[in-house]
């Protein structure tokens, strides 16, 4: 009666081992801090910016960075810092929203296709092939040209573009795991097919999906910027990093780098933050023993 209760010495607390090496990785900390900083900026910008971000003529035109305007002013005399801060709201929230939508829809769709197979799976694969046969940015430009620009359309298009990848990834994960014995054991525990799928298989398939989601987030951040740059994104007037870069593009040649430079740096930082996080999650996945 005594032998079985003698456990391994509790050298390591279970909660700690879960983060393990990833908890110590510089990539995770740098990425997470960067992302936190950008989110914080977006939150602060909803309440306060040094100058009203949409007001023109708060300073001289195309004034270089100074104490009064740390990021300088643009061609309309607006404060670039205030506009960059206000744009964080738009870009960060669109990126997060898009990735969440694609992740949730793609996971559910791909899981169902992988788990139930049959006609549903077949149709799913044909739809994915159709979507993949278009060059993605071209598709985005086409849809926005037809449906019109505006936040809702941008979110929709940018979320649909990576959707096939999420669906494929979730489908492959579930297909490889559905024969696992713990899935059979879950049936014997009394779970129906949806219970087996969403209570056992999907949670055990999330890591690669989350890794991909963070890679995808950096791509989404730059795509939103690119659409803004092409004038297909957010309506001019409301601040958005990509359209800010477009506004300053001529000024770069005459030496006024700050009008495009700071919003460009912001896009880079947002994309880099997600990249670093995805690296850390991938490391976590390597050392974690999924099954």
């Amino acid at each position, binding site marked *: 009666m005594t032998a079985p209760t003698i*456990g391994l010495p509790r050298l390591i607390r279970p909660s700690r081992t879960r983060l393990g090496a990833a908890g110590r990785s510089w990539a995770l900390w740098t990425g997470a801090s960067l992302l936190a900083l950008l989110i914080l900026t977006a939150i602060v910008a909803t309440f306060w910016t040094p100058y009203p971000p949409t007001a023109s003529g708060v300073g001289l035109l195309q004034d270089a960075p100074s104490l009064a305007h740390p990021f300088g002013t643009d061609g309309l005399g607006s404060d670039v810092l205030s506009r960059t801060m206000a744009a964080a709201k738009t870009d960060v929230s669109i990126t997060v929203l898009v990735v969440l939508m694609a992740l949730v829809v793609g996971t559910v769709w791909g899981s169902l296709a992988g788990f139930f197979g049959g006609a549903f799976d077949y149709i799913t694969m044909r739809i994915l092939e159709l979507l993949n046969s278009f060059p993605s940015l071209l598709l985005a430009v086409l849809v926005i040209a037809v449906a019109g620009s505006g936040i809702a359309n941008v979110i929709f298009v940018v979320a649909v573009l990576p959707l096939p990848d999420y669906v494929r990834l979730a489908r492959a994960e579930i297909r490889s795991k559905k024969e696992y014995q713990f899935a059979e054991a879950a049936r014997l525990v009394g779970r129906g097919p949806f219970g087996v799928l969403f209570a056992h298989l999907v949670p055990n398939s999330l890591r690669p999906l989350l890794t991909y989601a963070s890679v995808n987030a950096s791509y989404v951040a730059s795509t939103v910027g690119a659409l803004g740059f092409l004038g297909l994104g957010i309506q001019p007037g409301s601040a958005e990093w990509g359209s800010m870069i477009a506004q300053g593009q001529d000024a770069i040649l005459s030496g006024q780098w700050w009008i495009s430079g700071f919003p460009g740096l912001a896009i880079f930082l947002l994309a880099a933050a997600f990249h670093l996080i995805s690296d850390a999650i991938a490391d976590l996945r390597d050392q974690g023993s999924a099954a």
Partner: protein
Amino acid sequence: MTPTKQAPSAERAPIALDVSSLRKEYRVRGAGRHVTLTAVDDVSFQIRPGETLALVGESGSGKSTIARCVTRLVEPTAGSVHIDGKPIIGISARQLSASYSDLQMVFQDPTSSLDPRMTVAATLDEPLRLHTRLDKEGRRARVAQLLADVELDESYLDRRPRQLSGGQRQRLSIARALAAEPKVILLDEPTASLDVSVRGQIIRLLKRLQVEHGLAYLFISHDLGVVRQMSDRVMVMYLGGIVEQGSTEEVFENPVHPYTKALLSAAPVVEYGREHDRLRLTGEIPSPMKVPAGCRLVGRCPIAEAACALKRPDLMLVTETHAVACPVSAPDAAPVLAVPVP
């Protein structure tokens, strides 16, 4: 020759698990044409509460397929399964899920049969949520009781499977099987993946739980030592069919079928009662796609006669509780569908 019907079991003590004419065929593509592979060929047996029936045979003989058909993890091609008189086959998926409160299974490898993300507490809470009406407090108490039942310390509640040893994992999966208070547990080689030092503990645990809960066990194993120690009756399987069935004592002391004799002779330990005729089969177990038409052992059997290749032998009673499918070894025995349960 019509096999005599088995005695109606209504007036006898209850049957916990009643399997009748269970059959599982697979359609396989072999060499360009479809071949029917019979993994389980009209197998019938019964187990009473508190009793252990062992199922022995080489890998590939269909042992695990029987367990998977009984639980309908795979759908059997034909046959019937009843738990305590209630059917398992022919009911809806929803009813089947509910039936799993009476019918449980312990898998060979607890490492793959436990959800790696779920803690001990969550693993045991899940069947309780699905099969009982206990509230949160009641379930917590029941989880603690289950852990005590399988001799796991309560400090393990927050651990995940990979933080447990192999033996502890198997205890956890036994506790999970016990959670809904089943009547029948199918044990699919429950000790095969464990260290020898842990096997004895798990066997003792299973026996104690059987007595305490009146469980009926179908014990699948190829470890003859454990089978002898664990079971009341033994069923020997070869290429999907039962070749011999009887009380553990009879089968081990007085094996009749040449395959059983060979199986016992092949076992490394020679202390199975008195020395019986050593017997060695020739050749390899044939592919399940090429099962001989008559007796399955034809071609490997040293005592086969010409008639053996023509007709598949029926089970025939050697004693009241011992049946063999070999007319050469037991020429005077009477054919039966299944051995009456003692």
